[in-house]
């Protein structure tokens, strides 16, 4: 069955007629042509499909798209500001070596964002827990953890306005 679904995507009101059996991941990639969110396994194990819905991180490969109605979705593209300015978390990943092949990075950055939206002083254990659902084969996680720690500092040092 098809239904017109309205939701907020990276701050913009969007709507599309969508099929009931589709998961949010393919809708983001195909219908909205936002290829930043990746399919690494389609099974909810690798985390490369992570997006944020209403402030919490979820795996979009297992998220029935009808459920997104009325909700606010943030993808990796949504973190990039005007003029292509990277979000502090993205900047931290760039500066601190948190990215190698980059395939896990969008999902990893969003899991980091979900954590850092809750606290700017996460412990290393909290950081590891927050990204425990995001697999990476390249980095061995060390520089990803460094990046998230650095991102936390950047966010706390930001001008409050």
């Amino acid at each position, binding site marked *: *069955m098809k239904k017109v679904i309205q939701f907020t995507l990276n701050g913009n009101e969007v709507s599309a007629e969508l*099929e*009931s*059996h*589709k*998961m949010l991941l393919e809708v983001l990639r195909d219908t909205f042509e936002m290829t930043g969110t990746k399919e690494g396994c*389609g*099974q*909810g194990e690798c*985390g490369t499909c*992570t997006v944020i819905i209403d402030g*919490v*991180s*979820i*795996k979009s490969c*297992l*998220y*029935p798209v*009808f*459920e997104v109605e009325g909700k606010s979705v943030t993808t990796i593209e949504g973190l990039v500001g005007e003029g292509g300015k990277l979000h502090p978390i993205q900047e931290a990943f760039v500066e601190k070596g948190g990215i190698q092949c980059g395939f896990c990075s969008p999902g990893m950055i969003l*899991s980091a964002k*979900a954590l850092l939206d809750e606290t700017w002083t996460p412990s290393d254990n909290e950081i590891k*827990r*927050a990204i*425990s*659902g995001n697999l990476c084969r390249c980095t061995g996680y060390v520089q990803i953890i460094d990046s998230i720690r650095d991102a936390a500092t950047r966010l706390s040092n930001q001008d409050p306005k």
Partner: protein
Amino acid sequence: MKKFDYYQPESLNEAYRLMEENEGRARYIAGGTDIIWRIKQGVIKADALISLRRIRPLEGITRNGGLTLGSMALFRNIEKDSSIARDYPSLTQAVSILANPQVRNVATVGGNLCNGAPSADSVPPLMVLEAVLTIEGPGGRREVPIGNFFTGPGQSCMDRTEILTQIKIPKKVFNSGSAFLKKGRVSQDIAVVNAAAFLVMEGKICRKCRLAVGAVAPVPLRLTNIEEMVEGREIDPELLDRVGEMVERAVSPITDVRSTENWRRVMSGVLVKRAIQKAHKMVD
């Protein structure tokens, strides 16, 4: 991916009606993290899914002396509830290491139960806490103690039209403690073995003991004769060793792609022992 219709009823009655209209072709879906993957694999056939997410009364977590979890309560919310952490630590421990953060943000305790995996992490704590499940359907409502809920791997006593609505846990009693432990191949894993223990102590003597172990039998197991052996005794190393031996004999694990029968057998004994030790430490 096989095609399916997707309905989003806002009340139980609407859900029953949709299930009746789609007889034979529909299933209920909660968070979806288990069922969607199995549909993708072709293991489950469903031409229609009836989502329970919009049925508001199912979401809540209520402290009312005891604890009532709506079946659609998210693991994330259970994990963050400090009163649950204080009063029912085994449940918080299980829920906080179940899967990963993204899954915990959408997965529900009811979905975990109805999926019926013998390795379900939420089950051993709910078993030792003697949870009672409320099952509702077009024909009415019934209460089922969790020990009677599972009938086989992936199977429960519910019929296709029924919905699990509540999980009720009795009030915490003084001098009690509970704990949950899990073994996986790496830290992010489905349980190769899991276990929970609940103790009520009177000084050094254990007055009440409840033990459960998962992933080592077709259903999660309550270890009633071992509980009886522990009750009335001091928790000392000799008792714990006996517990370990008895647990090894009580379980019927298999060898599969995850582990061997022998290791699971030995682990069930070790985990139950250690869960008792941990629960003992948590006694207030």
